[in-house]
């Protein structure tokens, strides 16, 4: 029996340990697959192209004794959890990015999540990043060895004539001895090691946004995958703790960016009885509140308005959400120029927000691109803006104007918790009487001696206590069988999970005998479509 333990997820990519009986291998990996699966060597006459119609696949269903399970876009799933599945002929899929993505999504959706994916003859230093990004784990040396036979020198940045080996681009043992085959294999292994590192750092997307620039098809694959937003979004962790590099146009299409915008529009509830809003520019420092400019803004506003930050690529960040991933985590090149796509995307978000939440006054304390976007949004939404600055929003003139604009407005109650709860759990919770303690952003929320929530400063998410969960009427529950978990809740024990749950979400575990708080280790869909591994990392258990 083969076995596959997933260790770390990053979107569709993952690191893990695969064992086909010959001992465990760390994935992603390039290895002699015919050694792992002796049946591969003797397979014959079984070719069925990826583009073959269902009829042909039914007539000649490909399979290999002592081999991985062959999956095909036109075929029902025959794989089980722990299996190695092989997308035969995957190396040909690159030529048509639309097919690549449609096939991939179809295959991923119908195959158990905890299967190890083998893409034969597909891995090159140039391709393995996007292959891992697509959710493949196992690779062979076929493609690089072919390049060696062709006299081609492989690097992650592209392929060159063999004599490039002498130009100092690489100094591996293969290059030292003029052994092209050894170099090419080495180059593949190195790239896989690098990719594995980025997966562990939960930053593979950043690497892929870089790597793909050398091949148009990879850019198209990335873009098509982004367009499969429902599918892609599910695989994204709810938060990462590192920096999110917003360094290319495609960042705006990232599932995590789109999810943030969507949740701000659909889940987030602004502070009640607050009918004045101020639109503010973002700051390089995150969370914004820690920047000098925002400290000045907040001083000038004095709590007399709801603060909304207009920013690329996120769109709109209500002050309450400034610590939440990715609002507290993105890093973006600042040139002052907002391109038309940014403007369209962000003004669309603003317009939808203002259509949904009616403010009596909206003061645009903005300049440049952000101001342009706010004007566009106002036009779309048919609302009127007031303007409180002409140039530098953090300059004394603008700050005085902002102060003056808010003269006579009454101070509204600070209600960060309410906003965060609505965003994170989709719940409109009455937080009256709950106060925050601690030093921003390390906050705790409690009433008297009862603590309800604390903030995970890495992700900006709320961590509810049992009392906190009592305030959240529904959702984010994982139900388990009639047992008391020792440590983490494992996948086989899970009987149900709110489909909204994503990797990293705070969840409440409910069973007949216990209640427990914890953090989901994978999305609801995968919990239900997998057989092994941790489902929820438990923080606290209460026996019932």
């Amino acid at each position, binding site marked *: 029996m083969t076995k596959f333990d997933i260790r770390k997820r990053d979107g569709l990519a993952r690191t893990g340990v695969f064992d086909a009986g010959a001992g465990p291998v760390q994935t992603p990996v390039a290895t002699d697959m015919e050694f792992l699966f002796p049946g591969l060597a003797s*397979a014959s*006459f079984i070719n069925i*192209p990826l583009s073959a119609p269902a009829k042909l696949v039914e007539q000649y269903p490909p399979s290999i004794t002592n081999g991985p399970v062959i999956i095909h876009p036109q075929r029902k799933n025959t794989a089980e959890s722990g299996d190695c599945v092989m997308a*035969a002929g*995957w190396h040909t899929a690159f030529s048509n990015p639309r097919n690549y993505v449609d096939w991939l999504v179809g295959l991923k959706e119908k195959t158990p999540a905890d299967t190890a994916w083998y893409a034969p*003859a597909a891995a090159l230093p140039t391709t393995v990043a996007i292959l891992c990004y697509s959710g493949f784990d196992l690779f062979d040396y076929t*493609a690089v060895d*072919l390049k060696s036979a*062709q006299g081609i020198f492989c690097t992650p940045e592209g392929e060159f004539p063999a004599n490039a080996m002498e130009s100092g681009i690489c100094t591996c043992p293969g290059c030292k001895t003029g052994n092209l085959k050894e170099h090419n294999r080495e180059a593949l292994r190195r790239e896989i090691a690098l990719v594995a590192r980025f997966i562990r750092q939960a930053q593979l997307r950043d690497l892929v946004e870089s790597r793909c620039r050398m091949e148009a098809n990879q850019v198209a694959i990335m873009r098509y995958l982004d367009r499969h937003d429902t599918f892609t979004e599910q695989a994204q962790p709810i938060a990462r703790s590192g920096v999110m590099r917003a360094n290319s146009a495609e960042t705006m299409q990232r599932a995590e960016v789109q999810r943030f915008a969507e949740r701000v529009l659909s889940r987030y509830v602004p502070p009640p009885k607050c009918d004045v809003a101020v639109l503010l520019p973002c700051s390089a420092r995150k969370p914004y509140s820690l920047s000098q400019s925002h400290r000045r803004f907040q001083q000038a506003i004095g709590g007399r308005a709801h603060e909304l930050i207009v920013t690329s690529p996120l769109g709109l960040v209500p002050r309450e959400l400034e610590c939440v991933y990715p609002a507290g985590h993105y890093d973006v090149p600042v040139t002052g120029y907002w391109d038309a796509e940014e403007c369209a995307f962000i003004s669309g978000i603003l317009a939808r927000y203002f259509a949904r939440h009616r403010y009596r006054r909206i003061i645009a304390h903005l300049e440049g691109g952000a101001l342009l976007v706010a004007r566009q949004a106002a036009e779309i939404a048919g609302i009127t803006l007031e303007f409180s600055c002409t140039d530098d929003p953090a300059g004394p003139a603008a700050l005085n104007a902002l102060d003056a604009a808010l003269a006579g407005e009454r101070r509204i109650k600070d209600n960060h918790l309410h906003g965060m709860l609505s965003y994170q759990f989709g719940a409109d919770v009455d937080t009256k009487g709950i106060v925050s303690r601690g030093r921003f952003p390390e906050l705790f929320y409690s009433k008297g001696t009862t603590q309800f929530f604390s903030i995970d400063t890495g992700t900006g998410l709320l961590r509810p206590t049992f009392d906190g969960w009592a305030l959240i009427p529904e959702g984010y529950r994982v139900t388990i069988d009639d047992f008391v978990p020792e440590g983490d809740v494992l996948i086989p024990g899970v009987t149900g999970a709110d489909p909204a749950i994503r990797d990293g979400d705070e969840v409440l575990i409910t069973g007949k005998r216990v209640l427990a708080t914890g953090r989901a280790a994978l999305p609801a869909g995968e919990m239900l479509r997998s057989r092994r591994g941790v489902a929820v990392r438990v923080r606290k258990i209460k026996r019932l």
Partner: protein
Amino acid sequence: MNVETPEKPLASWRGKERYDCEQLDCLTIIFKSGGCSWSKCWMCSYRHERYGKTDCAELLSRLRAQLAWVIRENKPEEYRMVKIFTSGSFFDPVEVPPAFLADVATAFRGKLLIAETRPEYVSRETLVSFIEGLDDGSWKTPLYCAIGLETSNDFIREKCINKGFSFSDFTSASSVARSAGAGVKAYLLFKPLFLTEGEAIKDMETTIRDILPYADLVSMNPCTVQRNTELEYYWKRRAFRPPYLWSVLMLLKNAPVHMTCDPLGGGQKRGPHNCGKCDYELVRGIRDYSLNADRELIAALLETECTCKNEWQYVLGNESPYCMPLTR
């Protein structure tokens, strides 16, 4: 596109053919017919070349017009052999009205004639009467039935070609033909869909051995990507690569009999090809060999050096049915 042109064959040309250690002047004709009755082979686009809805009488008259054009254009003394193709089978009575056969026999009386047909249309009766009209004693075997057996492997013929008949259909047809005094020519298809380069080579090697008792002449066609075929569908999606010329050379060199081979589209993306640098010379060599049967020529060509030979050898050893084709 709908302009009416005077009736003439789809194609017709003159060339040389090797026969019985001689090089004969040969007239090749592709008649436009009623169309192949089977018409399902993955790689065949000739099936689209057919008259639309016509009745038998009209079909006959059009065929006759084509024949008349051929006779008009070619003096009988300028060729000794005639090869006839249609979109399907020359002896299929639905595709080619039987009355036309007699015309052809008469027209080419005294010539050596090779006519292509599927095995199911090889009937003793038809052949006997056809040979009667054709034979003037010039040739020991004045007629050869050319059958696109493609491979002796029924599974491959079914899955990879969708040919719709079996090896035993072929051997039966061979017996029938011989009993009627006709010879048998076998067309083999080198590297149909869904086979690795290595699988395709092995298939040819086996097939050549298998057919020796049943075929008098053997012609091997390296697979070419024709328009509007299933093969083209897969080729466009990178699921098919035509065979290497190296493979063709190797098969010709090792075959126990002389095989003719016309690498259609040789050296082009859609035809059998290597890397583009060595192709021209090799294609020419293969054509020469078809005529002169000079094994030493083939052996020498196979020894030619080119950077793509490494690639070919790698493909032979490493292309697997679950990851193919490795190259383009």
